[in-house]
């Protein structure tokens, strides 16, 4: 084969600036993390200690709790965002009064600073003076210590995450619903399907691409989430609302760099083992349709 003298109008050096930044600041650290997670490390010298960091991770109770909490938090926020996102999207595409205002109101928290939201809700969830419990007291209920009760703190944060993130899920679902041809609904109506039947038989199956997106995005986000938890509880009370990302930060602060990096590797593996099979399964289902 003769080599053409002509140069491609799409030269690979176009990729170069991006590649340099991406490789040095993302790929190299990611690959390096595999090594450093096997060491005791102070940023200058690293001594190999095999799988000790991982052993420590799975033997210390507050660290395994962080792993558990990560999964609970991610599944919970993802599931609720999916369900409420779909219901809100159906409601906000049904031509109700004030529809566009409602879309705006539901979406706006997505754009607001997570730290700001976290601080605000920490105040609103104050056990005695917060609006949550004052409101509950007004109707004769005794509110819980949303963020001070160790068994509740993680779920309270997840609730705020839902509040802040449901707008994005709704937005994606609205785009997904817009792509469904009205013909399907007319055909279903002619077949005598009720509204509920239309929802289950037409909307849910046909909006599946949006569902895949919402679940995937919110799961990845949930597994990696840090700032909201950090702003509201710092993993407390005790270690009750710690997740992997906050554990990583705490170990980093404490100077256990090897251990912190091991946490990173575990988080990476966790995301991969959840997201990859899920994507594979979704892809296979899409082919079936």
């Amino acid at each position: 084969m003769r080599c053409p003298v002509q140069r491609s109008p799409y030269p690979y050096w176009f990729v170069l600036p991006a590649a340099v930044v991406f490789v040095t600041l993302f790929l190299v650290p990611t690959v390096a993390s595999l090594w450093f997670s096997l060491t005791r490390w102070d940023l200058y010298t690293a001594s190999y200690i095999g799988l000790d960091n991982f052993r420590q991770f799975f033997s210390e109770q507050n660290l395994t709790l962080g792993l558990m909490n990560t999964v609970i938090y991610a599944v919970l926020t993802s599931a609720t965002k999916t369900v409420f996102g779909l219901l809100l999207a159906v409601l906000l595409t049904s031509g109700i009064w004030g529809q566009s205002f409602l879309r705006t109101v539901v979406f706006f928290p997505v754009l607001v600073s997570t730290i700001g939201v976290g601080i605000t809700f920490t105040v609103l969830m104050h056990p005695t003076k917060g609006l949550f419990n004052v409101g509950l007291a007004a109707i004769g209920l005794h509110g819980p210590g949303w963020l001070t009760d160790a068994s509740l703190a993680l779920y309270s944060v997840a609730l705020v995450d839902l509040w802040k993130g449901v707008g994005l899920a709704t937005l994606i679902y609205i785009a997904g619903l817009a792509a469904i041809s009205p013909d399907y609904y007319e055909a279903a109506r002619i077949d005598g399907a009720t509204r509920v039947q239309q929802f289950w038989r037409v909307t849910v199956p046909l909006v599946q691409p949006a569902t895949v997106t919402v679940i995937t995005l919110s799961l990845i986000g949930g597994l990696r989430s840090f700032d909201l938890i950090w702003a509201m509880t710092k993993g407390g009370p005790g270690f009750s609302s710690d997740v992997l990302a906050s554990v990583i930060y705490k170990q980093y602060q404490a100077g256990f760099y090897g251990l912190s990096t091991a946490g990173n590797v575990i988080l990476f593996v966790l995301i991969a083992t959840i997201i990859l099979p899920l994507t594979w399964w979704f892809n296979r289902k899409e082919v079936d349709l």
Partner: protein
Amino acid sequence: MAEVVLTGIRKSFGAVDVIKGIDLTIKDGEFCVFVGPSGCGKSTLLRIIAGLEVATGGTLHIDGKEVSKAEPSERGIAMVFQSYALYPHLTVRQNIGFGLSLAKMPKDEIARIVEATAATLQLEKLLDRKPKELSGGQRQRVAIGRAIVRNPKVFLFDEPLSNLDASLRSQMRIEITELHAKLATTMIYVTHDQVEAMTMADKIVVLNGGTIEQVGSPMELYNAPATPFVAGFIGGPKMNLFEGKLAEEMRCRTYGIRPEHVLLGAEGRWQGRVKHVEHLGADAIVHLDVAGLGALIARISGDTGLRPGDDVRASPQPGKEFRY
């Protein structure tokens, strides 16, 4: 002004051979048309000449210089695309002057050339519009203007009229022919419309499956098509072609007779029945069903009284038959 010489040009995309060895000389100032069915490689061949594709084998000379591997902009060519490919974000003025501004020509000189070109194409009033504010014919003219300002040795056109409606198409056909007469530059024009080929070309190149079937002037191809493929492709309605019993009788593999050379009357070689008559005004196209032969098409004077169901006899005009 330049001669274009293709020698053994081949092109394959992966394992698929699209152009299978083309030798062709296009003379200086000639209007050369590539015709052929869809997918036969006309565009690919044109793009090889333009330098948008690099040939897998063979050489290409423009104006005596080998340019087989030169950049498109260094070949002295200009191209008009089927989609016009006008830059949507630039005005007509900027579209026409784009190449000149890339060549760092002074602004006032660009302005002068653009205005002059616009004047020849009657685009003066449209110079500050964007392409989406133009009609199909106007866009076509801008695309031609952009080609003209490059002052090319060879113009390349890839089905430039296929997006226009019928009346605009015949008008632009005349404009391009006049442009050729005025500039006297070599032009290579791709089309799958044999009417465009017949009316515009000095030389027609009939392509089929990546090879040349025949090269010649329009009347040469009409009067002496070298192969049944060319015979069927040039001229409309299509030539009647028969294989089998009739061809055997005529001692050939394929026997052909053009519709305009079929005589209808009370006497004749074949007994047929009229199935359908298309009245075109001056002419009429008569579709016959001939016993033992099948469908036969005749083109006769428009004042015929023939009607579907009539029996009629048909015979070929002597000396106008083709045997392959």
